[in-house]
C-alpha cells in the first residue's frame, strides 16, 4: 500500500527508495549529499509510512532535503510554512466566501421563482435546505496545503516547515493528519489520502515540541558535517570550484565552528561563501579577501569583530588542517 511498495511492485530494483544505497545515490544525483543516517530515515519513512521530523541548526539542509526528495521521486512538493497564529483555515481549507456570495446573488431571482410555487412554508424550507448544501460542496472549497496534499492521488512530498514556530493548538491539530493521513472537513466529511504523502517536518528548536507529535514521527537530527562531507557538498553545489580552494575554505569554516560564536556558519553559509569567492575569481584564501567577505559567513557584528582580530591565526590553523 505504501508509495514505495506500490511502485516497488513494478520495478523492485530501480525504484529510488528500494534501499538505503539507492537513496544515497539518487539524492546525490539530485545534488544532495546525504549521510547514511539521513538516507536510512528516508527509507524507514517510506516503508513504515511515518513522517520525518528533521531537526538541526539553521542552514544545515533541512528544507533542502525535502526539496531534493521531491525531485528524486518526481513528485510535486507541497510546502506549508508555519508561523505563530497559523490556523486551520490557512493550513487545511477555507470556503470561497466571495464565490458563495456571488452565486447567491446570481441565483436570487431564480430562487424566488423556485420558492413561489411551493405550496406551503415547510416545502419551501425543504427546497432551501437542498440549495444550502450546494454552497458548501467541493467547488466552493478552497484547499490549503494540507488538503491539497491529501488529494494528490499520485502521492506528493509534504513539507511542513518550521513547525516549532506554530502554536501548540496547531500542533495538536496536525496529529490527525500525520497519523492517519486524513483530514476532516465538518461540512463534507473525512478526506483520506489515497497515497500517503511523504511528510517532512522541520524544526529549529525554538520551543520543545510535544511528545505526542514526536511519537508519531521518525526523528532525524542533521548535525553540522565533518570536513570531508562538507567538501563534497561544496563541490556538488558550486560546480567548477577548484579542489584546493574547496579544501582550504572548508577547513577555515570548520575552524570557525570550533570558536564560541553567536551563530556558527552552517552549510548554506559555506556554500554562499564558496560562490562569493568564485565570483571574485579567488584562487586561494588571501587574508584581505577573507576579511572582506567575512560577512557572508558570519551574521553578527560581534562575531565578525572577534574573528577578524585573530584572522591570521585562524587562517594558519585552517591551512594546517587542510594540509595545503
Amino acid at each position, binding site marked *: 500500500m505504501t508509495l514505495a511498495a506500490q511502485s516497488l511492485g513494478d520495478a523492485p530494483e530501480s525504484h529510488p527508495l528500494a534501499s538505503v544505497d539507492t537513496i544515497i545515490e539518487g539524492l546525490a544525483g539530485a545534488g544532495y549529499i546525504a549521510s547514511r*543516517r539521513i538516507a536510512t530515515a528516508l527509507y524507514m519513512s517510506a*516503508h513504515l509510512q511515518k513522517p*520525518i521530523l528533521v531537526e538541526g541548526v539553521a542552514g544545515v539542509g533541512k528544507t533542502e532535503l525535502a526539496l531534493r526528495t521531491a525531485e528524486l521521486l518526481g513528485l510535486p512538493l507541497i510546502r506549508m510554512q508555519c508561523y505563530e497564529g497559523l490556523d486551520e483555515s490557512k493550513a487545511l481549507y477555507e470556503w470561497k466566501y466571495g464565490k458563495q456570495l456571488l452565486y447567491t446573488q446570481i441565483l436570487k431571482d431564480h430562487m424566488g421563482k423556485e420558492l413561489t410555487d411551493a405550496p406551503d412554508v415547510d416545502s419551501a424550507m425543504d427546497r432551501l435546505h437542498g440549495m444550502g448544501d450546494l454552497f458548501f460542496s467541493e467547488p466552493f472549497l478552497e484547499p490549503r496545503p494540507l488538503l491539497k496534499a491529501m488529494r494528490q492521488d499520485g502521492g506528493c512530498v509534504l513539507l511542513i516547515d518550521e513547525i516549532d514556530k506554530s502554536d501548540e493548538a496547531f500542533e495538536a491539530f496536525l496529529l490527525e493528519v500525520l497519523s492517519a493521513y486524513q483530514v476532516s472537513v465538518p461540512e463534507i466529511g473525512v478526506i483520506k489520502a489515497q497515497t500517503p504523502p511523504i511528510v517532512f517536518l522541520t524544526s529549529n528548536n525554538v520551543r520543545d515540541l510535544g511528545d505526542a507529535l514526536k511519537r508519531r514521527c521518525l526523528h532525524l*537530527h542533521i548535525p553540522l558535517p565533518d570536513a570531508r562531507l562538507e567538501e563534497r557538498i561544496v563541490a556538488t553545489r558550486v560546480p567548477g570550484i577548484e579542489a584546493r580552494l574547496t579544501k582550504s575554505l572548508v577547513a577555515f569554516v570548520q575552524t570557525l565552528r570550533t570558536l564560541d560564536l553567536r551563530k556558527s556558519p552552517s552549510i548554506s553559509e559555506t556554500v554562499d561563501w564558496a560562490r562569493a569567492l568564485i565570483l571574485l575569481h579567488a584562487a586561494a584564501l588571501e587574508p584581505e579577501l577573507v576579511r572582506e567577505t567575512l560577512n557572508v559567513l558570519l551574521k553578527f557584528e560581534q562575531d565578525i569583530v572577534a574573528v577578524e582580530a585573530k584572522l591570521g591565526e585562524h587562517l594558519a590553523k585552517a591551512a594546517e588542517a587542510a594540509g595545503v
Partner: protein
Amino acid sequence: MAAMQGALEDFLRALRAMEVRVSPAEAIDAHMAVAEVGYANRELLKDALCVTLAKSEDEVEKFDIAFDTFFTREEFKGAMGPAERGEDDRLDRREPEAGQPAGGPGGGSRDRADEASQETSLAEMLLDNDAIALSRAMEAAADRARAKDIRLNTQRSLLTRKTLDEMGLRELEALINQLRGSGQPRDEALAERLAERREALFIEAQRFVERQSKLYASETGRRMREKILGDMKLTSIDPDEMKSMEALVKRMAKRLASRYSRKRHRADKGKLDVRKTIRRSMGYGGVPFNIVWKSQTIDKPKIIAICDVSRSVAAAAQFLLLFLYSLNEVVDKLEAFAFSDRMVSVNDLLDDEKLDEAIAQILKRIGFRPTDYGRALADFCDTHLDELDRHTTVIVLGDGRSNYVNPRLDLMKQIAERSRAVIWLNPEPETYWGQGDSKMDAYQRFCSVAKTCNTLNQLEKIIEEVLRTYSPR
C-alpha cells in the same frame, strides 16, 4: 527470532534506563523497523532504530552510546586472546581432561560425576577457548543472577561474583584443586592453564557487569545524586559537585523558560473586535464573514535581579550567580546586578563571557566585601530607578545583613512602589531574620514575597511562581 525479540526488548529497557523515553507505540515501531531492515547489517540497524527511537539531539547521543555498549559481544575474544597461545597443545590436553572427572584417578567419587556434565562444560569451554559459547553462557548466567536489575554502581562486585557462580565457578575451582593435588605433571599443567584462563574469565565477567551497569544503572545513579543535590543546602555544596549542579541549574532554567515563554496571546472569545471585523469584511462587500475576537497580549516577564555577593553569603553567591546566568540565557528581558558594598550591572558579563569566566569576574570585581545594603540600593536608584515599571519584577537574592549601617528603607519603599512585585530570596532560615545585623524583618515589609531559599528546588519553585503570575491561569 524470539531470542532476537528478547534482545530488542532488553535494548529498549537499557534505553529507558538511560532516560531515552520509549513509549509502547515506539517499541512497536522499533520492532517494525527491525522487521524491515533485519539484524544482518549493523549500521543499517543502528540508523533505523535511531530514527524510530531517539527523539531529540540529546537522545541521539544517548542512543549511540547505548547501542554501542549493548551490541558489543565480540569483545570477549579480545580478553581471551592471551590464552590463545596454548592452541597447539590444546587438543591433546583436552582429551585426558574430558575423561578425567568421570574416570578420575585415585579418589574420584561418584557424586562428583553428577556435577561433571556442568563443570566440564565451563572447563571445556575455557580450554576450547570457545568465545561464543562462553559469552552465551555468561549471558545466561547473568540472567539467572539478575545482573540486568543492577541499579547502583556499588552492586557491581557482588553481581560479578554471582554471575561467575552461576557459570559454575565453584565447580571449576574444585576441579582445578583436584587436578593440582593429583600429583601428575600433566594434570598440574592443565590446572595451571585452567587457572590462567579463569583469571581471564574474571576480567571478562567484570567487564560484562560493568557494561550492564553502564547500560542500566548509570542514569539511576545520576538521578539519585541530582535529587539529593536539589534538596541540599546551597551553602554546603562542595566544589566537586559544581559540575552536576551546573547541569541541573541549566536544565531547570530551560524548563522554566520553555513553560513560560510560549504563549504571547490569549484569544478572548466573547469580545468582538469591531475594527478588525469591519476591515476584514471589506473583501466580501461589507458582509462580516470573518469575525475577529479581541485577544490579549500576555506580558512577558521583565525581571530585574539583584544578587548579593558579599562575604556573608559567599557560599551561596556562586549558585545564585549560576542561576542568574542560566536565567539570562532563557529569559528575554533580564537585568542583572550584583553588589556587596557598591552595586554594578553585570549584564554585559553574563551576555558575553562564558559561565565560569563570568562568575569569576563578577566575584573578582565586587565579591566578598562587607555588605552595605543602603549604599547598594542608593547606587541602584541613582541609575536604574527609571527602568522599573508595573511590568517589572525585582528579585533580590541576599541575606539582608547590612553591618549595622543605614539600610535605606526609604529607597526600598520606592522600589517596591514602582515595580510590580519585589521578591526577596534569603538563604537564611526565617528564624534568623531580624537578628544581629539582619534587617530582613524591615525589608520584608516591602516585599510581596519574602522566602527562605537555600536549596535548588526551593529556588525553582519560587521562580516558577514569579513566571506563572504572568501567564493565564
